[in-house]
């Protein structure tokens, strides 16, 4: 917990300075989580602001200040989910207007403007986003919270308010789908995935779950 319970209680009573302190304490973390959940850097601040606006109007419903962080995570999940749902609708309509060649050209133009390192980062993002697109928006968020954000099952249980076994089943299925998509990778994406594991660059610590 980044703040003490008294600050949460003060914010619940309508103390705006206490609420400002809550924003200061959590904004960076929320921005990071939102960024990894939605994969669109240009919209991250907007969605994160929406999280804090929802928090402001729902804070009085929080009965136990100890549940503040799961509550905030829940609002983050809901805002990200709403954004992804809207985005999916927009993308479908936009992409239907473009020919496949136009889409490839747009990608090529965008990538030439980036440095090699930025290009590599963009490739990793694109690869993970394409793998996560194999599952529903809900599963994408759940999987990201577990695998990328590192939330434990206990924490996820508080966020989703469902039993741990149900979460395990859902996570397992989602991960299996992503694994299948990972196995089907071909071309540049497969090379990138191999290089990440072979060179040890950006390698994962051995003590993580």
């Amino acid at each position: 917990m980044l703040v003490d319970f008294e600050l949460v209680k003060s914010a619940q009573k309508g103390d705006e300075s206490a609420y400002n302190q809550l924003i200061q304490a959590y904004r960076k973390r929320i921005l990071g989580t939102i960024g990894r959940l939605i994969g669109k850097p240009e919209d991250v601040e907007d969605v994160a602001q929406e999280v804090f606006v929802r928090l402001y109007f729902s804070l009085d419903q929080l009965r136990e200040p100890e549940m503040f962080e799961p509550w905030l995570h829940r609002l983050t999940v809901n805002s990200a989910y709403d954004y992804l749902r809207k985005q999916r609708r927009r993308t479908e309509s936009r992409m239907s207007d473009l020919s496949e060649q136009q889409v490839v050209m747009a990608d090529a133009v965008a990538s030439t403007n980036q440095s090699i390192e930025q290009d590599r980062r963009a490739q990793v993002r694109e690869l993970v986003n394409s793998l996560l697109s194999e599952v529903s928006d809900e599963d994408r968020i759940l999987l990201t919270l577990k695998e990328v954000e590192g939330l434990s099952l206990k924490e996820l249980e508080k966020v989703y308010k469902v039993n741990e076994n149900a979460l395990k089943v859902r996570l397992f299925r989602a991960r299996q789908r992503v694994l299948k998509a990972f196995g089907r990778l071909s071309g540049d994406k497969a090379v990138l995935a191999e290089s990440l594991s072979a060179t040890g660059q950006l390698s994962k610590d051995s003590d993580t779950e």
Partner: protein
Amino acid sequence: MDSEQKLDKLFYAFRSVNPDPVPSAGFTPGIWNKIEARRRQSFVVSWTRNLVAASASLCLVFGLFLITPFPNGSYPLATYLDSLDDMHDLEVVAELLKMPSQPVDGLQPVLVEEE
């Protein structure tokens, strides 16, 4: 290295290339602007909702008033003169009209003889 481990590494790499960003200067003021906008919006919505509810209640009350039958005697079914006409008790009528109940002597009704 199996696919599970490769996927774990990929997720870790994804975490590394997406660090927590530094919020812009307008981030917190932007939150308060949105809160204010939503407050105003909710005020207008609640005011409109109250107005609609009040109008609906008034319509309901007037509707009930119009369709509810009144018990006998509490609603004037006839005019005042009709009521008087219906009264056969001349004394009561005379009292009401402040007129003598018996014909005054010497004043006989004029009878028009038919030819």
